[in-house]
């Protein structure tokens, strides 16, 4: 018996699947399962995070409902996965943020945006907030650069600390039987597997979403979202280097590297989340963890808002709307950062960690 009902169910399913093994060619979950005969909490959390929810094992399973064996691996592992985020969250008292995550995220976002707007309004007079500012340093008329760096630096560092502590707890829990040292080769393999979403492919034909036809485009939308995020992050990093190394202040012209990266990333962060959201709306409820709906949609919405406000800011930065839009954009980014350790963002880190472990197990077994 495990600590939770969902882990008990996951254990039951892995026992069924381990005596069948028909799905071992579909993804990483089943080969990892076959390396075990019994499953600890850590093992099950590992398998849950290894699952990319492509749905193939459900469509292919002769024992899925209405069969009495009631085998539904994608849904069970989705619930277990969501619960694992809370189980490993740091600091412990904040793990509750996962329970009603959609609410937490939306409140945080609304509050952050409101505070930025009110802050701008309080610190600047109306003429500045709704004024037209152009040329280098235009943004910093509304908020001094150092204040921006201090605030976002602190939020970013906190997010990193909380994420590192959470992932560390997960990594320790899934350490048996091969220990807690990761090797470079396994990490490289995991980067490749995560970067190409190797296991979000339904065993080769594509994923399943709304029916038994492998037509799901989530892989594409996820790539747009993820690489959009990375490009936006790169844009900010390049701009930071410009600022400190070259002494060049934002905003930059449209053809300059930070703006090009940010524009491409922003498009990804708008199109990708819309696609993911649409796929989620269409998804067969049998495959879905409905309890995590708020968390999933909350994260998608935050990414979308970040992309959208950023793009609007780019387009309208030479108008009077720049001040309010900058406040909205900064509010969205701030909320995204501070909720990162307590929302769907963590799925990427846990899944990556599980992929490292899997690559390691494969190398050990080989």
């Amino acid at each position, binding site marked *: 018996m495990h600590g939770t009902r969902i882990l008990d169910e996951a254990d039951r399913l892995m*026992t*069924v699947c*381990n*005596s*069948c*093994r*028909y*799905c*071992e*060619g*579909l993804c990483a979950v089943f*080969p990892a399962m*076959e390396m075990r*005969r019994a499953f600890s909490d850590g093992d099950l959390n590992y398998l849950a995070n290894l699952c990319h929810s492509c749905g*193939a*094992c*459900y*469509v*292919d*399973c*002769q*024992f*899925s*409902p*209405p*069969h*009495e*064996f009631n085998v539904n691996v994608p849904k069970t592992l989705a619930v277990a996965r969501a619960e694992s985020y809370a189980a490993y969250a740091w600091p412990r008292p904040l793990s509750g943020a996962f329970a009603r995550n959609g609410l937490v995220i939306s409140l945080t976002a609304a509050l952050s945006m409101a505070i930025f707007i009110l802050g701008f309004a309080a610190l600047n007079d109306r003429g500045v907030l709704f004024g037209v500012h152009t040329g280098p340093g235009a943004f910093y008329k509304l908020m001094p650069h150092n204040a921006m760096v201090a605030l976002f630096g602190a939020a970013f560092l906190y997010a990193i600390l909380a994420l590192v502590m959470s992932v560390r707890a997960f990594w320790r829990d899934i350490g048996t039987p091969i220990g807690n040292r990761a090797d470079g080769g396994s990490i490289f393999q995991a980067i490749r597997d995560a970067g190409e979403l190797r296991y979000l492919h339904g*065993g*080769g*034909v594509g994923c399943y979403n*709304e*029916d*038994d*036809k492998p037509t799901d485009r989530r892989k594409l939308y996820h790539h747009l979202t993820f690489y959009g995020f990375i490009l936006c992050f790169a844009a900010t990093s390049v701009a930071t280097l410009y600022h400190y190394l070259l002494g060049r202040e934002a905003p930059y012209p449209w053809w300059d590297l930070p703006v090009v990266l940010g524009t491409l990333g922003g498009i990804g962060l708008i199109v990708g989340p819309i696609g993911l959201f649409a796929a989620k709306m269409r998804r*067969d409820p*049998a*495959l879905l963890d409905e309890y995590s709906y708020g968390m999933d949609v909350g994260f998608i919405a935050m990414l979308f808002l970040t992309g959208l406000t950023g793009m609007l800011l780019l387009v309208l930065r030479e108008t009077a709307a720049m001040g309010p839009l900058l406040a909205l954009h900064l509010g969205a980014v701030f909320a995204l950062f501070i909720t990162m350790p307590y929302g769907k963002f963590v799925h990427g880190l846990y899944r990556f960690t599980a992929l490292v472990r899997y690559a390691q197990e494969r190398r050990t077994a080989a």
Partner: protein
Amino acid sequence: MADRRDRGPAGRMSLIWPHRADGMSSKYDVLVIGGGNAALCAAISARRGGASVLVLEGAPKFYRGGNTRHTRNMRCAHDAATEILTGPYTEEEFWEDLLRVTGGQTDEVLARHMIRESKDILNWIVEQGVRWQPSLGGTLSLGRTNSFFLGGGRAMLNALYLTAERLGVDVEYDAEVVDLVIEDGMFLAARLQRPVRGETEIRATSLVAAAGGFEANIEWLKQYWGEAADNFLIRGTPYNRGSILKMLLDKGVQEVGDPTQCHAVAIDARAPKFDGGIITRHDSVVFGIVVNKHAQRFYDEGEDIWPKRYAIWGRLVAAQPDQIAYIIFDSTVVTSFMPTLFPPIAGQTIAELAGKLALDPAALEQTITEFNAAVRPGTFDHTILDDCVTEGITPPKTHWARRIETPPFLAYPVRPGITFTYLGTRVNKEARMLMKDGKPSANMFAAGEIMAGNVLGKGYAAGMGMTIGSVFGRIAGREAAKHARN
């Protein structure tokens, strides 16, 4: 997902299937009865041959495909290793294997034809959307001869259905055929009982019967097995009732195969009555002893390597009182075989274990004591026919005999699990049914389990059922379409 799936093709069907006012539907070139591997290969092959095709599957959509849903591989001849096969498996070697497992009870012309055609099936089936993978964990012994379906039999079926629907084959589920209109060996129409729309007659120029055997029809099994059949567990769906087979035999088609023959393995007695599939099997026989309800051994558990003698244990258990037996072993061998769906029943002493199994403790203790005393020293190796034998007991255990002495003592209760039956319709190389007078039917073809007895008089080797299904399904569809076009 089930409700959404049901809306798919069935909903589409009513739009494209014109019903006439008199309740007669329009005529199809080829009617395929059945919904498994053989039926779908026939439907696809007929459709590719230019015929209009209707598939009638008696089961609901989830349970479509009969035994195919539980399969995982197919045995095809090939002259060289492939991406997923570790080495060549020539036609001659396939033939020799078939000859060995059937003890010569096979139709050589048909069997050799099937083996020859099986080579091309390896590629053809991929063209129909099915994907292969190397042999599964725990099945290395089949890595050279058998190609495994990526995702298993249901994945294979899903691919075939998607292809068939894409090609324009009509499929109807819950479509129980209650009568066949056959005159002088000529198929005219099938009477269909639909759950909602009632009885309809469907006419077609050719018929492909691919509706499987009668393994789920306990009453029919009782004709050969008596009341013992009540204790059989059926490994596939409850829809394999053999009703089409019976109609064909009653209407003049020549029968083939021994009606008492069936593929039966020992499966866990705790398995559901139907559709427990592969996961209820036990491959631990060689690691312990097997006793009946009187706690007596009854057969040499170490006769041959798993899975070669895998399929004899169903019949052996069926011959025991109450059709129940117990595989008994100790804690030293638990990890020597695949993990099982049902956990073993455990006791710290033999007597405690016997109590949990409702066996006579004294009798079980005596059986194990005598067995242990008979075990001779040897070097245990479960991958070969090793030299661990018993001496001085009957029956002997001729390999892998080791003392059962390390608690906890463990047991799996087992019953006969019926996979499929061998009684079928006789066919020729065109998969055309032969009538009782020996003449080929004008327009009736058969494929899959319903005619497997032509090739398999008895015995079995892994993956052959699917070979018979795909090869003869493809032939039957092609010939049925050819007949319809002429």
